[in-house]
């Protein structure tokens, strides 16, 4: 599902609501940007990373993506900046940086 097709609640008037607010499209929660209230973003230092995958395993929002080169990166569309990945990283390869306002 492409993120360009993203529709938010603001696109609906009361007349557009399905009966009982039923959502007809399966998996539409994937289209909802949940990473828009992050105050810090994780940055991963490939020099330190040993590809152990603990960040990917512990992320409560499945916002750590495995890459083709076996490293990882944060999907900022979903990442809420909780910092768990940085905390569990045994190599201190992840640092939380302030989001600019």
């Amino acid at each position, binding site marked *: 599902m492409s993120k360009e097709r993203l529709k938010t609640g603001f696109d609906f008037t009361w007349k557009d609501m399905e009966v*009982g607010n039923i959502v007809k499209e399966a998996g539409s929660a994937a289209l909802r940007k949940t990473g828009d209230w992050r105050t810090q973003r994780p940055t991963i230092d490939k020099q330190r990373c040993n590809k152990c995958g603990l960040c990917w395993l512990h992320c409560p929002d499945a916002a750590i993506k495995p890459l083709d080169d076996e490293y990882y990166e944060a999907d900022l569309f979903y990442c809420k900046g909780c910092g768990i990945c940085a905390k569990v990283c045994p190599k201190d390869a992840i640092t939380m940086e302030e989001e600019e306002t």
Partner: protein
Amino acid sequence: MSKRVGLEGSHAVAEAVRMADVDVIAAYPITPQTHIPERLAEMVADGELNAAYVPVESEHSALSACLGAAAVGARTFTATAGQGLELMHEVVYLASSMRYPVVMAVCNRALSAPLSVWGDHSDAMAVRDTGWIQVFCQNNQEAFDMTLWAFRVGEGPTVLLPVMVHLDGFHLSHVTEPVILPEQEDVERFLPRFRYPLPLHPDRPTTHGAFGPPEIYSEAKVAQEVATRKSKAVIMQGFQEFGDTFGRYYRPVELYRTDKAGTLLLTMGSFSETAKIAIDRKRKRGEPVGLISLRLWRPFPFEELREAVKDADVLIVFDRCISFGGPGGPVCSEVRSALYNAKKRPTVVGLIGGLGGRDMSVEDFEYVIDRGREMAAGGAEELYDVVGVRGPAAGIRG
């Protein structure tokens, strides 16, 4: 041929549910509703009704089970009373906002404390704003008729709302009266098979009950409110077609001897029949009084009410519930509010009685009319009076 049989109100409801050929029944027994699920469980066990009877552990679960069944497109029924309706409360809101046309009979019962299994309208008034279509019954025939009608209206493709059928605990639920049962083929003509537009199905995945963040909640609620008010057209059509099929025509606001009546009494439910005798007695003595009975409680019948009272000087509203510290009985305050901006309206006064199973005799209703007129003549300074309560005047004023 239809047949006329003696049935208590509970069994009249059960017969209607059987003839409606429901798919799922989930209910928890509570006085005075017990005979409804008891009779339905018996029908299912004896093979008289091909339905799933879900014996749940609470009223909260009873209605939840009905919602689950309705979500896959089943015709569903439950029944409760008093405390049971209170325990069910949060799910009552879900049924209407998720637009599942569950039908529920409520054998109206007082709320604790002190513990009372007897009847009044406190339970009904506590679910006043839950978004269900709600009707009140005056007798057991109506309990049968309104239950059948409820499926037809709630399942209407443009409606899809749950319907609550209120019948007075004990005064109807446990009293045997003659009830005309129709032919099954007429019921099937009146009540086509239920087709839910977007049922849960593995082949066509949909999400029911998704969360609504602030940017969509208002839109969802306005859509629900508009649907509730628009259901009125289907309600009226349902009354008409019910009459055309079975010969008994109902109206949102029932009128009794209201011609040239300067004073009108307004009641709901089975006490309306007692009040009619009081009206007869007063008419015989030459007093110009009439009775209005609200059948349809939600959506509120504004238009019919205004039309019914437009020529009256005094409107006495009889409530069977107290709104503690509030603006009088719930029915009275709604009626007063509905009429407030009308160009010509009667003086509205409230009386409360029949609480927790206290009987109201014909003489009591004659007193209600006399007392109501006295309150109106005195400038309606009192907010309301309670009929037949022992002790000095409580002097309840706004």
